[in-house]
């Protein structure tokens, strides 16, 4: 997790195109300027960033299902629940399942577990659009490689 680059997940550990599910992992950094303000003397991973981590996990699933043809942008959030505090250094296990894809939108159900315990969950809607430009798409492909996105699965899915 590189908070300063808004990279909220570390790697994709499972992508199942038949079940339309994904699992990712992330480790909250031990130190960040964010924790100096949130909160002094009681550092906590901000809930909005946990939601973003679920959105990024879901986003890679949507990119996989649409075979890298569309870019998902965050459009709506429903039933978000932040069930317990997440401190610096915490390992996160994230998962998402596709509920809908079509007519320009995708909807997922996502969650985060810490040591097996459900910590956050939400339903997230994305607007799917063409990649804005070649540079954007190239950067996404570069990030896919960093996250160990299984490109070969697109050929078989």
């Amino acid at each position, binding site marked *: 997790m590189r908070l300063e680059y808004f990279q909220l997940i570390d790697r994709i550990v499972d992508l199942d195109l038949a079940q339309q599910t994904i699992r990712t992992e992330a480790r909250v950094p031990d130190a960040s300027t964010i924790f100096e303000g949130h909160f002094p003397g009681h550092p906590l991973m901000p809930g909005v960033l946990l939601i973003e981590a679920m959105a990024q996990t879901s986003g890679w699933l949507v990119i996989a299902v649409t075979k890298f043809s569309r870019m998902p942008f965050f*459009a*709506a959030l429903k039933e978000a629940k932040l069930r317990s505090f997440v401190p610096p250094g915490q390992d996160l296990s994230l998962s998402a399942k596709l509920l*809908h894809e*079509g*007519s*320009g*939108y995708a*909807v997922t159900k996502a969650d985060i577990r810490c040591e097996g315990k459900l910590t956050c969950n939400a339903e997230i*809607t994305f607007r799917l659009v063409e990649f804005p430009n070649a540079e954007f798409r190239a950067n996404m492909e570069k990030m896919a490689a960093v996250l160990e996105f299984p490109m070969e699965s697109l050929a078989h899915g």
Partner: protein
Amino acid sequence: MPSTFDTVANIISETCDIPRDTIKPESHAINDLGIDSLDFLDIAFAIDKAFGIKMPLEQWTQEVNDGKATTEQYFQLNNLCTRIDELVAAKGA
């Protein structure tokens, strides 16, 4: 049993916070009620659930984008209700 229109109008009213009495059969969801595609997605989910159908929203959107259909054919509420009734009938056939 409420009519198709009453069910749809109630869903729209609740989903988009639009006063129920302003929603008429001749209302156009986009032009008259100001519903955007994001809200319409929620409406479509609720309609699918209420009627046990799957509206082919992507196909309708494509037909409109390709100029093969007008938005009135699918998004004017009396026409939308006719489409819903057709899908319900097809399900039972």
